[in-house]
């Protein structure tokens, strides 16, 4: 199966560096990785979010619903879950902008 690799690096003002990577097939998000020098509490919850995103259809509502389950469950310092969500959707070409 041919996967397309998409990637972007952001540095929110006053925050940390975050690289957002997505591996996509024709209609599915196969794998997601958030890497960088930010902090997540607890760290394991962000990894769980990455795993939960894997396999999502390339659909705004589906992806947003996965993120929604983690808001309040993981807190980021140097970035935020909202920023990760927005940037992932933008990277996937699913953002309104």
């Amino acid at each position, binding site marked *: 199966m041919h996967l397309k690799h998409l990637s972007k*690096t*952001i*540095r929110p003002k*006053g*925050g*940390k*560096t975050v*690289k957002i990577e997505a591996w996509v097939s024709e209609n599915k998000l196969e794998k997601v*990785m*958030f*890497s*960088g*020098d*930010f*902090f*997540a*509490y*607890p*760290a394991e919850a*962000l990894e769980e979010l990455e795993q939960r995103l894997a396999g999502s259809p390339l659909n705004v509502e589906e992806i947003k619903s996965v993120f929604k389950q983690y808001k309040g469950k993981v*807190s980021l*310092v*140097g970035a935020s879950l909202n920023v990760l969500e927005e940037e992932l959707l933008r990277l996937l070409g699913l953002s309104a902008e």
Partner: protein
Amino acid sequence: MKRRWRLIIGEGTVYWNMAVDEALLELASRGKIVDTLRLYVIKPSGVTVGYFQKISEAVNLEYLSEHNIPFTRRITGGGSVYHDAGGEITYAVISRVGVLPADVEESYRVICSGLVEALHLLGLEARFEPINDVTVGGKKISGSAQARRRSGVLQHGTLMYNTDLSMLANVLRAPKEKLKAKGVKSIEERVTTISRELKRRVNSKEVLDALIAGFSKALGAEFYKAELSDIEREMAAKLEEKYRSREWIFKR
């Protein structure tokens, strides 16, 4: 009245020290240990990367291999660090919420004020720069990283007193986005050491004494010297295997 904290001073490999820090965090999260400050030297010199960093982007793997420099991944976030055995002291504060602020960013401020105070005692005007840096003259001299497990808190970080900065620049990699945000062209331009700032060669004993006094003030602590307990050593010995494993180090 000052609160009593245990003080453990030591040295060891990067794997052992990361394992000890995690063991103490785990025990703190179970309410099994007293508040502890560790001051240690990573020997031989080694490198740690943050929990979420991609190892190939955070360090120069080829250089590390050529120079036999050990490296591992931390359980704390943040960036990559070069721990110079002859020029850097690592600290670790292990305690719990209640003794330290529940708010993560505020707890960085409280703990990092110990570093600012230590530098002040050594004759330097230092500043805490949120989220996790301490700077002198706008250059980074210390970086910290914090992990939490239930109510347990671990914050560890560096204080560079005589770090070989050209070695540091060879070993670490920084994304261009980070350098741009800091307004510098290279890592070397962004960092400094106590010796460089004081224009004299300081020794580790001076720095250790300043750190103890600085943290005593910041944490309202009265320190007593101690060693790791048998339980702590045993737990760290098991965890050390993880820190040496490729699976852990290359997980990202």
